[in-house]
């Protein structure tokens, strides 16, 4: 079995090989990509936990190591599943798209090497190094999308730079205070460190990298532009997987340095730091949900839903009791799969129709039924409706919040989950159902190669929804490793102190109900099949049925309630223009002046130095 370091090296070299291969032939390069990534998935799948490797050395006395932990392995498997499916999708997708295929494939591999390193690094600095490689890889791909994606790439890098540099600042202050960087040692030192302020500072700064990357409240503005405008298949990787790197760092900041032991409990066993982070999660749920309801561009809509689900994961992880933590981790899996699935179906829609605006489309179900099925199961899981896996994690988070008695957070999570019915339904009604536009009448279903990964996602979601044992087992092993009481579950029954339910009985009962309805449907006379334009129009004769489609301003009545909502993007743009103004001011004052200006500055410096010295 190839060791991890060689695997990462294989990917680094692989990115150059795939550049050359895709230069030769697009399809060959993408197939090479897919094979390499699925090989990585195979290696990561059966790697032994606790396996440790030594890497290069940067700072003198601190050893750089890669170590396989349950947490890292879980995140790596989820990410690699998503990326390998998307890589399979790209084999066909890349043919028609006008992006630079060679660069796309090679940077994808570069990013995957970074991701592998992040999940298996055993100390803060190695994690930072691979983190930056992953950011670099993804940064290079994002601008290949629409015109707006050029600006989006900059915003993406700057926000993630803010997060990772605060993380670096904390890493160095730990290194300077304790001299060590690996997670176990740091958590021991932190445990018996006296100054509360230092602990607060360190954990908040480390968590800030997670906050920036998974689009939590203060640093969430980049998600809309980046996911909305990145190349379609890549936004599936972006929101399905890259956001999870942020959740991984949040998981580390919260559970590996166990905040529960570090700080005294503030509210029902939840320390104040967790409470603050949970409240950041809450605000991002609110922002994500309410902004998603307003969007007309379907990709930006799901980007906002990623913000909301990032908030869910943070709330789940923040509660730190056995159910809540398990809920957060399970939601990582669900959101990764659901978001990837939805974005792939959008990629398929854009592959055929070329537009992402909801109101420019309609009735695509009659031409692209399988894409519709993927999208349907995707939103059922994203919205958290029982037969699919999405519900399990939301159920866990709800029951942990109820048992902790945090009712405002509970109310906000309810708003989030019911709100998700609203915003997932908007593209469903606007894009797939309703009247088929004349210009889309000759749209065909996407080729088979693109359909296979989408349908595999569907099967995976329903399978895990009915039989969540594999995911629950790995979560139990993580919880034991991190020192939280593991949740008890037996295959399909999930037990909590508040109550339990059985995924299998729910599914069988649902199918029984479905069969009863089908029997009733069969017994009675068959309805006459009528085509789409035969509608009740209230006695009016319609010439152009394209207009007879309700999609623009789908929730206008509720949007009107919060039209004047505070926009953080404008706030940050004002901040940037403030910096720009300072730059302009100095440029005009010091650099662009006449010679007398220069002499003026020299005399000023002399006077200051004289005055300071004597």
């Amino acid at each position: 079995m190839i060791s991890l370091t060689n695997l990462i090296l294989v990917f680094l070299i692989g990115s150059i090989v795939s550049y050359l291969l895709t230069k030769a032939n697009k399809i060959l390069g993408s197939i090479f990509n897919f094979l390499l990534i699925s090989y990585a998935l195979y290696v990561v799948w059966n790697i032994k936990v606790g396996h440790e490797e030594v890497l290069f050395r940067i700072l003198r006395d601190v050893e750089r190591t890669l170590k396989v932990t349950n947490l890292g392995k879980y995140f790596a498997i989820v990410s690699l599943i998503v990326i390998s499916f998307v890589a399979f999708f790209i084999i066909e997708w890349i043919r028609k798209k006008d992006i630079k295929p060679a660069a796309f494939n090679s940077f994808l591999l570069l990013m995957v090497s970074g991701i592998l390193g992040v999940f298996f690094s055993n100390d803060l600095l190695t994690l930072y190094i691979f983190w930056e490689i992953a950011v670099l890889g993804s940064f290079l791909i994002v601008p290949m999308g629409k015109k707006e994606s050029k600006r989006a790439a900059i915003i993406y890098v700057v926000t993630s730079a803010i997060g990772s540099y605060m993380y670096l600042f904390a890493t160095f202050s730990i290194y300077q205070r304790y001299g060590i960087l690996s997670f176990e040692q740091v958590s021991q030192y932190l445990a018996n460190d006296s100054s509360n302020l230092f602990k607060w500072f360190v954990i908040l700064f480390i968590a800030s990298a997670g906050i920036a990357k998974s689009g939590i409240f203060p640093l969430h503005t980049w998600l809309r532009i980046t996911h909305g405008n990145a190349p379609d298949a890549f936004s599936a990787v972006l929101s399905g997987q890259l956001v999870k790197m942020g959740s991984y760092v949040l998981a580390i900041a919260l559970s590996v340095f166990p905040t529960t032991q570090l700080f005294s409990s503030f509210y029902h066993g939840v320390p104040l730091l967790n409470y603050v982070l949970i409240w950041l999660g809450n605000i991002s749920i609110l922002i994500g949900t309410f902004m998603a309801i307003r969007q007309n561009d379907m990709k930006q809509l799901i980007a906002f839903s990623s913000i909301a689900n990032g908030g869910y994961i943070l709330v789940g992880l923040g509660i730190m009791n056995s159910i809540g933590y398990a809920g957060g981790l399970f939601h990582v899996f669900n959101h990764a799969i659901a978001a990837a699935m939805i974005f792939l179906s959008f990629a398929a829609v854009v592959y055929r129709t070329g537009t992402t605006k909801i109101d420019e489309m309609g009735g695509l179900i009659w031409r692209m039924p399988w894409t519709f099925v993927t999208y349907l199961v995707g939103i059922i899981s994203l919205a958290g409706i029982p037969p699919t896996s999405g519900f399990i994690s939301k159920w866990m988070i709800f029951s942990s919040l109820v048992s902790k008695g945090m009712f405002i957070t509970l109310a906000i999570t309810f708003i989030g989950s019911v709100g998700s019915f609203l915003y997932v339904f908007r593209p469903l009604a606007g894009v797939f159902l309703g009247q088929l536009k004349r210009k889309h009448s000759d749209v065909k279903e996407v080729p088979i190669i693109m359909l296979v990964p989408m349908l595999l996602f569907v099967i995976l979601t329903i399978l895990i929804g009915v039989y969540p044992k594999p995911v629950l087992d790995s979560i139990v092993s993580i919880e034991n490793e991190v020192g939280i009481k593991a949740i008890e579950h037996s295959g399909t029954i999930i037990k909590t102190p508040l109550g339990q339910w059985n995924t299998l009985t729910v599914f069988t009962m649902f199918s029984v109900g479905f069969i009863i309805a089908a029997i009733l449907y069969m017994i009675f006379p068959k309805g006459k099949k009528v085509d789409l334009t035969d509608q009740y129009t209230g006695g009016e004769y319609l010439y152009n049925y394209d207009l007879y489609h309700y999609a623009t301003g789908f929730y206008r009545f509720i949007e009107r309630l919060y039209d004047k909502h505070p926009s953080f993007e404008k706030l940050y743009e004002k901040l940037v223009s403030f910096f720009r103004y300072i730059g302009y001011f100095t440029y005009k004052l010091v650099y662009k002046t006449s010679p007398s200006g220069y002499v003026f500055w020299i005399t000023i410096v002399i006077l200051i130095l004289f005055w300071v010295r004597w």
Partner: protein
Amino acid sequence: MTVLRVIAVLLTGFFVGLTLEGIARKIMARVQRRYGPPWYQNFIDVFKALSKRGISHGWIFDFGILMALGGVIATLAFVPLGDLVAFPGLDNIFIIVYLFAVGALGMAMGMVGSGNPNASIGVARALTQMLGYEVPYLVAIAGVLYYYKTSSVSGLMMAQQDTWTLFKMPIGGIVAFISLLGMLGKKPFDTPIAPAEIASGPMVELSAKYMGLLMLMHTFSIFVEISLFVDIFLGISNYLTFLLKFTVVWIIATLISAVLPRFRIEQVVKFYWKVPLSLAFVQVLFVLLGWVF
């Protein structure tokens, strides 16, 4: 054994539901000083509709209705009717509320699949209204869960040894009842169906068999919503007393809906998030502080 219990639950749902709907039409008529149709009128409507030959708008239209009816039947199976519990131990409150969403989503998808914009507007209103009433309802229920430390509905019912939860947490009860009105889609909150504005909303393209199936779904969903309210708030009851309490709640709801005009959709959401939500938070604060009667 469970199969028998499930069948019993479904049959009660069917018969009791339809008869009560008939009675509701009778009460509505009496309030409007007319006699109104016989109590078994709903049975006739359902069987008449099912026997006719209607029109279908493609496979998604049919699939949507099947999913709707299937989802609601599944939800009904989990709901304990007094002491008649189909799946003891597995009837978790969140399961019931969210499994109910499967039905709603199926119906929504099928209706919008018909291609008629009235249906889409109706469904958009239904979802918005759901956003309105669901949050205060769940917060109030969460207060009850937190107090009794269990989230299984039959457990909640059994926990009301000394007094009904309605008397223990009156404000919670009121909030739940107001949200119940929203769920039922009765008069003050029937903007999604609003016959005058959007040609009875989602049901615009339904005819014959599909209309019949939707009526069934409607009865079952009403049955689920009210039985949830009865189980949680109106104390321990065996099968008969459960049905009695059920009819009382149903009559009160019909009386209220008989006299109130329809809200506009923004007013529904604004109302739900002003009055019931703040009441729910007050109730939850009382539960946290332990001020429970």
